[in-house]
């Protein structure tokens, strides 16, 4: 259907980079999300304030500004700090690390909210019952809280994932070879920007559609024990 003038494999490589960035950022976001949710619900005041500040700041600032701040600001920061610990050479920030850490950091905030809601949706009585049986904190988390949390978190989680995949397009701006950047290189060489950007758009549609399919399956899997009206 599309004549890609031999740039097909290059776009495909970019697609793989896009998926890799998405998954790596997702892993980071989930870690931060769990941590954030537990600190929001903890009884420690400093933890509560820290996690509240984190989510408020992230939701107030555009992704692109944060990414540019991490990419350019991080560069300056590292090169100011490195000589202090005795490292003299100039350090270049890897755009992959800058991209993944920014996106992970941003979506960690959204995941925090999702997980917090999911934890609150698990009835307290069940946790109390588990403690009464003599289960330890870890066991209560892995056997009682986690399995039910996944069910409550899955719609919000799915949404976050879909937005995250689309946000990865921004890494092309800081020079990472994802599919958007591959497309712009190909577009420059062939003077067919419409074709290439459309192909990339369709690739995103495929990724999101497949994700929606998997998420649906996951949701059914984890709500097996729930009676639907």
């Amino acid at each position, binding site marked *: 259907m599309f004549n890609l003038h031999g740039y097909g494999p290059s776009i495909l490589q970019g697609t793989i980079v896009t998926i890799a960035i998405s998954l790596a950022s997702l892993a980071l976001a989930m870690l931060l999300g769990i941590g954030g949710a537990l600190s929001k619900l903890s009884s420690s005041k400093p933890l509560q304030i820290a996690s509240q500040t984190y989510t408020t*700041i992230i*939701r*107030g*600032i*555009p*992704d*692109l*500004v*944060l990414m*540019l*701040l991490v990419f*350019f*600001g991080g*560069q*300056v920061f590292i090169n100011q700090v490195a000589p202090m610990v005795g490292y003299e050479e100039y350090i270049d920030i890897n755009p992959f690390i800058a991209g993944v850490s920014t996106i992970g950091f941003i979506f960690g905030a959204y995941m925090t909210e999702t997980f917090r809601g999911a934890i609150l949706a698990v009835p307290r009585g069940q946790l109390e019952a588990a403690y009464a049986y003599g289960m330890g904190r870890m066991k209560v988390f892995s056997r009682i809280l986690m399995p039910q949390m996944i069910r409550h978190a899955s719609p919000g989680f799915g949404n976050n994932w879909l937005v995250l995949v*689309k*946000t*990865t*397009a*921004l890494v*092309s*701006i800081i020079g990472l070879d994802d599919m*958007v950047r591959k*497309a*712009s290189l190909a*577009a420059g060489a062939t*003077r*067919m*920007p*419409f*074709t290439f*950007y*459309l192909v*990339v*758009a369709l690739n*995103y*549609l495929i990724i*999101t*559609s497949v994700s929606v399919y998997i998420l649906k399956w996951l949701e059914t899997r984890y709500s097996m024990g729930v009676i639907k009206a």
Partner: protein
Amino acid sequence: MDLSLIIENIGIYIEGLKHTVVLVSVSLFIGLLLAIPLAVLRTSKNYFIQAPIRAYVYFFRGTPLLVQMFIVYYGFGQFEAIKASFLWPFFKEAYFCALFAFTLNTGAYTTEIIRGAIEATPHGEIEAAKATGMSRMLMLRRIILPSAFRRALPTYSNEIIFMLHGSSLASVITIIDITGAARIINSRFYSPYEAFLTAAVFYMALTFLIVFLVKKLEVRWYAHLRPQETATVEARV
């Protein structure tokens, strides 16, 4: 941190702020105008009316705003037909392209938000409207849309904030919005903290302003749902 750098160059940020505000408010406004009829038509049972709207929403919600903007700004120039037409003076301007892409993007999201709100209308309200003999248009105007707007407001306020954040992408196609201003300061003075943190402060302020305004609107729109404390006091007098 060198704050004097920002104070000296605050003019660029103010200029950027203007562009951000215009881009966001114009695209939100046209997007909303587009979304209301589309959402109503989307609930139609006719497949041929429903399917194209569905495809539009699916495309714009499933692809990144950045790519949509690139398709408009870089992509449309690929076609001689567009280049030769009266549209070209518009599509060769970055500003118009950003506006065009933002409008279609927020239009798609808003269509989906309003559709959800319309479909959540309690069945009894529609039945009652029909029973009083309202026509479909009248029912839409007096019953369905007012209550759908109330239900859609919290979700729509999120969309406003997303659009504000999304507008920062305009800086990628040479428009000097707040982010564009920050990029200029950063490349001119190589001072990323000052440049981008200032932009962040501007966006935070705008976000809080939006949240505040929506709260005010909520108070007005949900007035009839609040417990009426004053009524008893007045009754006593």
